[in-house]
């Protein structure tokens, strides 16, 4: 072993020392896009007790440009994010972008390229129309569908057929996530009068997906400050440590693609668990923030991520295991079903996982959470990004 490898690990341990979010709502008409991202970044700096001068680089992400019609948001937002004279990168992987943006930032710290990095993701859905942005009139293609719900609904039906899950499972997820959101002041939807009956009585939009089982359209931003061991030692609050992070991609459509449980998702999770030394995710992980834009994706991802055997994910949901007081809480924040500024949604998952292991999740804190998974996916179940964060520094 070369001398220097004995002195320092081959990768710099990465700590999350600052987290900031806007209060997500349907329309933030009072701020520009610059003002929106600034709010989240400022909150993250305050959490870390740092200033703009302490930031070495900025990594931002958002979903497709057509969502706001700003073709180079990284150019427009450089001054709002204090990036003058610093490296600034933009990441783009559709709905998973919030996760992959955080991972690109984490890798810059792990590789010792930069000591402290601000990473941020946003969407101001009220400036445009995502359903339009996802349904451009491509010539020679038969227009059959608009938006994401109709795209994913047939895959939900395929899951139900494959596993024999009762058709009530989706409503249980929506009911849980909307109740969790009531404990999260940053969540968009606060449906104080929510009942299971109301979820089950809501109209079918894309049968088998009901209105109450779909995500809202939100304006919001999320920011994190990632730093090295030196930065972590100065942190005024306990940091979250990155124990593993990975991204995987596959084509949107190919012969043999398993839309119910994509191979890229399985591989991504396996990589993260390997890095983190996790052999039994169901027992060793205390909380999960997974990207569930339509309620049925909770049981689907429980299987894809290795928390349940194939065909068994819905049983965890039905048994209450994924409730806030269950033994594997999923989306204690209320999840994407309660808050969906699309580009930011993945980063909110990563940030909420970090809040859990920092013990700073407030009313939706999972008691004693030491290890948490943040998960995002995007495109036609095409891009996956995940990280596992812990309360203790990584061992290796």
């Amino acid at each position, binding site marked *: 072993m070369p001398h220097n490898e004995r002195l320092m690990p081959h990768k710099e341990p990465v700590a999350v020392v600052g987290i900031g979010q806007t209060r997500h709502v349907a329309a933030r008409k009072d701020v520009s896009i610059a003002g929106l991202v*600034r709010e989240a970044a400022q909150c993250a700096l305050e959490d870390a007790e740092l200033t703009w001068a302490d930031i070495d680089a900025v990594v931002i992400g958002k979903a497709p440009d*057509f969502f706001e019609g700003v073709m180079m948001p990284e150019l427009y937002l450089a001054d709002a994010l204090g990036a003058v004279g610093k490296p600034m990168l933009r990441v783009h992987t559709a709905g998973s972008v919030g996760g992959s943006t955080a991972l690109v930032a984490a890798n810059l710290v792990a590789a010792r390229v930069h000591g402290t990095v601000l990473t941020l993701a946003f969407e101001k859905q009220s400036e445009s129309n995502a359903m339009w942005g996802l349904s451009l009139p491509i010539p020679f293609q038969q227009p059959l569908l*608009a*938006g994401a719900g109709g795209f994913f609904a047939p895959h939900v039906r395929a899951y139900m057929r494959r596993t024999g899950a009762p058709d009530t499972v989706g409503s249980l997820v929506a009911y849980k996530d909307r109740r969790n959101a009531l404990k999260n002041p940053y969540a968009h939807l606060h449906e104080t009068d929510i009942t299971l009956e109301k979820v089950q009585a809501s109209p079918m939009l*894309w049968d088998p997906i009901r209105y109450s089982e779909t995500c809202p359209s939100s304006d919001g931003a999320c920011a994190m400050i990632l730093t090295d061991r030196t930065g972590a030692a100065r942190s005024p609050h306990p940091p979250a440590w990155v124990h593993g992070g990975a991204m995987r991609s596959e084509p949107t459509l190919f012969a043999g693609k398993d839309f119910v449980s994509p191979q890229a998702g399985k591989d991504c999770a396996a990589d993260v668990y390997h890095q983190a030394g996790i052999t039994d995710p169901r027992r060793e992980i205390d909380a999960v923030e997974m990207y569930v834009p339509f309620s049925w994706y909770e049981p689907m991802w429980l299987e894809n991520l290795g928390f349940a055997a194939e065909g068994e994910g819905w049983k965890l949901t039905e048994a209450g295991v994924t409730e806030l007081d269950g033994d594997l809480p999923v989306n204690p924040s209320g999840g994407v079903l309660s808050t969906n500024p699309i580009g930011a949604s993945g980063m909110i998952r990563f940030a909420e996982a970090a809040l859990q292991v920092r013990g700073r999740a407030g009313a939706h804190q999972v008691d004693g959470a030491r290890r948490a998974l943040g998960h995002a996916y995007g495109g036609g179940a095409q891009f996956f990004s995940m990280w596992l964060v812990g309360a203790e520094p990584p061992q290796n």
Partner: protein
Amino acid sequence: MPEVLTAPLVVEFPFTRSLGPVQSAFLTGLRARTVLGVRASDGRVVVPPTEYDPVTAEEIRELVEVGTTGTVTTWAWNARPRPGQPLGTPFAWALVTLDGADTALLHALDAPGAESVHSGMRVRIRWAEERTGAITDIACFEPYDSEPGRQPTAHSGEFADTDTETNADTDANADAGPVTGIIAPARLDYTYAPGRAQSRYLNALVDRRTVGERCPACRKVYVPPRGACPTCGVATDEQVEAGPNGTVTTFCIVNIKARNLDIEVPYVYAHIALDGADLALHARIGGIPYDQVRMGLRVAPVWTEGARFPDHYRPTGEPDADYDSYKELI
């Protein structure tokens, strides 16, 4: 080489912009024929104003009024104006430092010819007659001899609802309080070409034949073909006719009408594995009540005169396919 199809693709949307406090003051000012800048941490006056300091990143909110006359710092001659540009006749794109400002504003300069424009020339704003709170409230700049030297003056950023000036166009331009948002229409004009493989597929559809392509490595048949196998990364050039019948592998019932689609709801949107294809294509199911469509249903295309694609697929009346026969094709 087969004919490669092309077609225009126009993408356009009226994006909205919430302005925030600084841009709101700037555009409300233009409506009242007043140009506002913002004072940066180092004392410089930035026009158009930004919300955050370009050097220190601090929030900056100290608004100042600058002049409506200024100096051209640099320029480029635009001999052939395009639709949507500020002037229909040849003009200069100019960076103008307004009197009292330390940064330059980009706009059009109406000048008789390139030879009449030079850096250092003095210009003034020509206001649009109808002003709405937009950068186009400045119609353009025009040559104007005057002495520079105006100093910026403090401004609250607030404007009275009624303009105190007595010009004829006052009433039309002074209503409705501060400008808080704008609409920024965007339009992109593309020529779309689906490529050789898709063109072969589309040309065969004219004869109501569905022709896919087989991957030479994994032997999978792609319908529609893409010219390459996404799994193996090799070219697919063996033509294979698939269908015309197929099996519904999964579906959803669409109950909400999309504004850009002329399809009555409810309707069934299905994945259909054509016989001989290894990937399902997507189509509408008809000829059966929507609530009787099921996975495994056997279907055949229904063509209408002059249409490129089958209008929908209808049940063939065959027994349903066994789940195991299509479960890998969902």
